[in-house]
């Protein structure tokens, strides 16, 4: 490549640079060649390598390209962008980025797990209390209903007994009334028994089932996250 050819290509490559910067750079290199003299022309052209490299150096300093990736080394201004391995380097870099993002992702997952565990531990008194409370009230209600049923049987039996006693004493009307009341109470007691059977047979297993499912969805779910 001749000096004229070099200058022509450099001018073309500096098309997108401001008019002033272009003029400055071109006049610098033009006078550089002139000052060096014809005898040095070939050496300088060889050292400048290519108009592309010179243009990139100028643009890099104007902040038009990516932040300066070059460095002044023992061989002068070196820039990896001009090395032929660029494509390979880029691919290597992108795969590195991928593995990096993957490790960040699993890092996030570990973080999430720790966070969930921390929340479970910190709120465990609350959840434990709630669970015990629900179970307690369910079993309390059940026992209460059982006790009420038992009391109704006793009350019904007593009323019927007292009513029969009234027949013996002579108050037939009071006897009938008491026996009737006792029968009504006994009927209520039988209804309550049916309720007890329903509670023991259906409601408690259902509640246990619901609690079990809840447990699995919380802790089984966490296992799936892991």
């Amino acid at each position: 490549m001749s000096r004229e050819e070099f200058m022509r290509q450099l001018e073309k490559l500096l098309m997108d640079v401001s008019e002033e910067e272009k003029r400055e750079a071109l006049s610098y290199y033009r006078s550089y060649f002139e000052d060096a003299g014809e005898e040095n022309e070939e050496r300088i052209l060889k050292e400048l390598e290519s108009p592309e490299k010179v243009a990139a150096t100028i643009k890099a300093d104007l902040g038009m390209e990516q932040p300066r990736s070059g460095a002044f080394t023992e061989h002068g201004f070196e820039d990896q962008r001009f090395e032929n391995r660029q494509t390979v380097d880029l691919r290597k870099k992108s795969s590195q980025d991928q593995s990096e993002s993957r490790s960040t992702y699993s890092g996030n997952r570990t973080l999430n797990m720790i966070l969930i565990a921390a929340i479970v531990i910190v709120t465990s008194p609350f959840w434990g209390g709630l669970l015990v409370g629900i179970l307690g009230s369910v079993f309390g209600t059940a026992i209460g209903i059982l006790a009420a049923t038992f009391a109704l049987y006793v009350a019904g039996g007593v009323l019927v007994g007292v009513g029969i006693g009234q027949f013996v004493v002579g108050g037939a009307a009071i006897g009938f009334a008491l026996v009737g009341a006792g029968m009504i109470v006994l009927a209520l007691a039988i209804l309550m028994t049916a309720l007890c059977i329903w509670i023991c047979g259906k409601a408690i297993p259902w509640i246990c089932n619901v609690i079990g499912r809840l447990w699995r969805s919380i802790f089984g779910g966490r296992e799936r996250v892991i």
Partner: protein
Amino acid sequence: MVFNTGAALLDAIVLAVVCKEKEGTYGYKITQDVRQAIEVSESTLYPVLRRLQKDDCLEVYDMECGGRNRRYYKITDKGTAQLKLYQSEWVNYSSKITMLFSGGELT
């Protein structure tokens, strides 16, 4: 040379080279003078000179020489002050490293 020359040190070297010439000096000569100290390629110095000029550390003027205009670079007051700063920083920096290399104690 196994050590890289950073942008600040390159600025300092260029300022020192230009400072030596009271009447100013030009691109090709600056490159040759810098090369007496460090290895630089021909394309290294233009951006440095242009930046120093924009930062008002160097001023440029054109002078006719052999039937054509030659661009001269001359150091400004600001450039001189900047060079002084670089020089004192360099003395500080290099003397510590020299001391360390020679096995002496840092004070």
